[in-house]
């Protein structure tokens, strides 16, 4: 972990860009403070002696994660599409992404 956890404005904006979040100025200031506080706090983990690469087994010991690879048709296409903010026929509608030549 980095030594300093004081985040400057540009760092917050960079993280927001990676996370695809538009922030206003007040939010940038708020997150400078809050991100800094949390990152400062979690630095304590550096003190803990751990085994490199160790992790808990998330999957219960008897659960077999492999099952028959069989496609199941989801019949209610309409229900899925109707939740989209904009749709046309059987498609999700978005602003133009390819410039016309």
């Amino acid at each position, binding site marked *: *972990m980095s030594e300093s956890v004081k985040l400057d404005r540009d760092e917050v904006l960079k993280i927001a860009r990676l*996370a695809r979040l538009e922030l206003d100025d007040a939010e940038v200031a708020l997150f400078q403070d809050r991100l800094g506080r949390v990152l400062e706090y979690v630095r304590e*983990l550096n003190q803990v002696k751990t085994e490199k690469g160790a992790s808990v087994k998330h999957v219960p010991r008897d659960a077999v994660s492999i099952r028959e690879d069989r496609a199941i048709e989801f019949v209610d296409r309409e229900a899925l599409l109707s939740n989209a903010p904009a749709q046309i026929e059987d498609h*999700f509608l978005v602003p133009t992404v390819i410039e016309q030549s």
Partner: protein
Amino acid sequence: MQLREFTIERVLAGYRKQEFSPVELATAYLDVIEKQNERLGAFLQVDRDLVLAQATALDARKQEVNKLPLFGVPIAIKDNFLVKDWQATAASKILKGYKSPYTATCVEKLESAGALIIGKTNLDEFAMGSSTENSAYFPAKNPWDTSRVTGGSSGGSASAVAAALAVGSLGSDTGGSIRQPASLCGIVGLKPTYGRISRYGIIAFASSLDQVGPFGRSVQDVASLLEVISGYDRNDATSSRAIVPHYSDHLKGASLKNVRIGIAKDWLEGIDDEVRKSFDEAVKLMVKEGAKVVEISLPHSRYALSTYYIIAPCEASSNLARYDGIHSGFRADGVTDLDSVYFKSRGKGFGAEVKLRIMLGTYALSAGYYDAFYGKANEVRKLIQQDFLTAYESCDCIVMPTSPSTAFKFGEKSADPIKMYTSDICTLPVSLAGLPALSVPSGLDSQGLPIGLQFIGKHFEESHLLKVAHKYEQIRGEFPLPSGVDY
């Protein structure tokens, strides 16, 4: 109808004796919810037509009351569960108006058992929070004192059961989101072993931690709900194939004789005096019944908060990447190109705490940081889990307070994220270890607010855990309801 006295068994008995019909009971609950919800903010959606349609269908199947274990029992569902035809907003603006295209497996199981889905309950946005103040719509209020929080994130589900607006409810628990509100609202709430219940149809927050669980007024009711909703599901690869016992039958003849109760002394630091006193009294009661106290040590649990606040935000930043302003829910106005659809919709659609956690996760997972944050946190998580497994070599069950304090006032902790996060200090280690645990009310503090006692079991040994908690509940005696719940 004395709704405040209704348990699952009482409702079934009422149907058998034809005291009321499903439509009559549903109507009684709908009327009370309509009157009380403005005061409590427990429900985000109550749809009279959807409820009465279910009740009418049950009316026509009256003879099945002896076959279906939850016939016509009103159950509330947290609004991050999908239930076909109902909304599922996860209390976020980004999912405003989202209508569930299918039903979560655990809710399907409830419906097959005859349950009546009475409404969708309030929560912290995307289950991120410990007070339900982060709901994008309105906060849920504690029925014991409406100037105080319910706890969270499943605050609406806890408030609804505590105020007798539903007989039982479902919540989700990622770091304490069932146990802590159960404690603050004076009811029973269980987080089962990770993998016990399918997560299919639950809006994902942190997938290696999220688990579904029931709320009820008694351990008996929680056991009855658990046996219905548990089990393997092909749609959730992490769901367990372990057989589902009849938990509620196993409660008969429960005893504390020679049960070895583990207590971690160092974990009791930082607990409020009155909570500590109630805990000590509860342990004394259990010892009187034949339980043996074993001192255990969970040295790495002191790092649970840091571990959790790396792992959960990392997983959340990935899970919440799907909210793009295209496939579902909200799209911001004034978008001109694809990037602005993403940036503006997510920027305006998510609340502050959700954005904070997405950014924490994004930062911790960004190039060059993965090993130092997510990798390191997973290594510490392993040590936290190992401490529990070692402790269980000398004890059968661990007890500790559920929450370091009773219900706090609105706004009291919302300005400082670390202060808020510490409300889950007693529940986080258990979540990281994937263990089952439940909160049972153990008393009231001097202000008349409920205190919760947490029982923690071994992986997939809910049956034993429920027995111990049930026996404790019996020796504790009747627990009061909040005043004002006298409809």
